[in-house]
């Protein structure tokens, strides 16, 4: 696991010095992170790196995971989709299932932190246990146009928190709580983002039967309707009429996402008979993801809704030209025509793919600008700093704080 020293060549000594100075101010406080899964998905991925770095800085950060069965996660997946604004058939008994498991977690999980940091809706009800400690609800979901019923239900818990944290300004809601903006981040030294040798990249392509003899368009995402994998296939098919290319759709499955297999089947059916489409259900293999991104000519993220879209940051960090939807946190990462191309439709995505395939110099420039933007704004060191400032802000009400 990389240490803070390892980040100095990337972000500079001064940034690490600032992290150390700020961490001093949090000595003696226990920060307890709680989420719903230890592996899979963006939240776990961030915590796996964030918690050790905070510990190295001397901050007593810990991480607990709630328990839940298949029924509970089916309901929370429905909630997740509904918060994203997708039509979902939410039944009264769904709230019952949610509360039953939640109550078990309330009974069994010790919320010992001086600051309890709850990630996403699954563990949201734990706030009913609050005493004189501080509570933060971290929303990783795009809730710019949520289903009203689910939002109203969750809001009864959210208002009990000291603060809510969102990934994009448009996700903020009218709430009595303080609301903060903290974008997620990528770790440049993780297996998913570190430099790879040509041999390592070649080995992954070989393993998955991909021949690098024509441009590769890739979307790395869970098989989830909100990631619109079927739309990606359509865009690829339209672009391929004019520029020969191949498509990789690769993603894993998370423990709290039960509908992934159905979507995977739909995807396989849609591209049946096209040997240039590679649908890969990956096990948790970060080096494979890294290699596929690095082998790609263009990275696509054509989501219909997106909490943030860290795969965009990952691609840009590798200086890859990106075609991505103009939604959620993606426009924070991509400035249209400057550090990537934004789209709003299948036709828009197809046109952008075609444009980048035909203009490699332009594509290269977009990728380089994107890498610089990620370096300055979306690396884990900035994220660690934001978290520490957030924890400190809970103990202050003024806008200028002298430490």
């Amino acid at each position, binding site marked *: 696991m990389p240490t803070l020293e390892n980040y100095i060549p990337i972000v*500079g*000594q*001064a*940034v690490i*010095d*600032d992290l150390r*100075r*700020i961490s001093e101010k949090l000595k003696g406080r226990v920060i307890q992170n709680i989420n719903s899964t230890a592996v899979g998905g963006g939240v776990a991925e961030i915590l796996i790196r964030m918690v050790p770095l905070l510990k190295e800085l001397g901050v007593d950060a810990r991480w607990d995971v709630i328990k839940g069965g298949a029924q509970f996660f089916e309901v929370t997946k429905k909630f997740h989709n509904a918060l994203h604004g997708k039509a979902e058939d939410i039944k009264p008994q769904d709230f019952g299932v949610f509360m039953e498991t939640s109550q078990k977690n309330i009974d069994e999980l010790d919320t010992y932190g001086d600051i309890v940091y709850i990630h996403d809706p699954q563990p949201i009800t734990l706030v009913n246990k609050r005493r004189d400690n501080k509570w933060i609800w971290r929303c990783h979901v795009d809730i*710019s*146009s949520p289903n009203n019923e689910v939002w109203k239900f969750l809001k009864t818990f959210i208002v009990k928190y000291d603060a809510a944290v*969102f990934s994009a*300004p*448009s996700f*903020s*809601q*009218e*709430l009595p709580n*303080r*609301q*903060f*903006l*903290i974008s997620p981040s990528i770790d440049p030294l993780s297996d998913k983002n570190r430099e790879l040798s040509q041999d390592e990249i070649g080995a992954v392509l070989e393993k998955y039967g991909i021949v690098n003899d024509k441009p590769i368009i890739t979307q790395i995402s869970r098989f989830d309707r909100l990631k619109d994998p079927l739309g990606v296939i359509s865009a690829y098919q339209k672009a391929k009429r004019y520029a020969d290319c191949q498509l990789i759709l690769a993603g894993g499955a998370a423990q709290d996402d039960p509908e992934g297999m159905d979507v995977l089947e739909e995807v396989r059916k849609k591209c049946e008979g096209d040997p240039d489409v590679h649908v890969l259900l990956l096990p948790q293999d970060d080096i494979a993801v890294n290699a596929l991104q690095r082998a790609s000519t263009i990275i696509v993220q054509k989501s219909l809704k997106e909490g943030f879209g860290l795969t965009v940051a990952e691609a840009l960090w590798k200086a890859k030209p990106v075609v991505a939807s103009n*939604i959620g946190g993606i426009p924070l990462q991509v400035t249209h025509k400057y550090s990537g191309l934004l789209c709003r439709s299948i036709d828009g995505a197809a046109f952008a793919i075609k444009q980048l395939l035909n203009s490699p110099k332009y594509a290269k420039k977009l990728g380089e*600008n994107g890498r*610089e*933007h990620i370096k*300055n*704004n979306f690396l884990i060191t900035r994220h660690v*700093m*934001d978290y520490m*400032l*957030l924890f*400190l*802000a809970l103990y*202050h009400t003024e*806008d*200028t*704080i*002298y*430490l």
Partner: protein
Amino acid sequence: MVEKEIKKAKEPFHFHTRLNLSELTGLKAFNLEGLLECLKKVPESSIYHHTHRFLQQHQYLSPEPPNDFAYWVTNSIGEKALGENLSSIDTVQFNSIDELRQVIISTVESCLKSDPAAKARSTDNNNAFCFMKSISFILPTGRSAGDLEEFVHILKNISIDSIYFHIFESRLRIGKKTNDFSYWIENSLENKKLADSISRLDPYTYTLDDLRGTIIEKVSKYI
């Protein structure tokens, strides 16, 4: 060879740094009238955030117009002329956030008066203007300079956030009339010429790295 004597300062310059956290106010504007209404009531830290955020986020890329209002009015409302007027507001001439706020308000008001059709233009929730504010954490870096040689040495290695604090934040947000560097050089080193040449810079037209280089170049002439 006689070594040039470096003048010692009456008081050392203590480098501070400033770290920033963005807080969402929950206020959103969907059209120019909504923008105007919010501009009048948001805290100063919000006006500061939206007129200075660009400086830090795009510090290494290009000297962007440091103004979220101009960007939104141009790209989400389609009012290019107003966008240009807002982005050309000469921030460096103001000594307080409130003065800056009044100019932004009057610029939007004149547009609404001269072009009634502008009132009708609006945007959706995805593109609404979300008012935020900056929470600043100010802390000493533990580094200080007793003369210009030490000053330049530290300036070369100090974080960009420290330079940002001493040039922008202390002048406008904390209400000093000049930047911290010029103040120290004039009062502790009695070098008014150098102090003036730094305070005459328009820091809003540089990237922060270019600004660092320019100040180092100016100070180095006196070492």
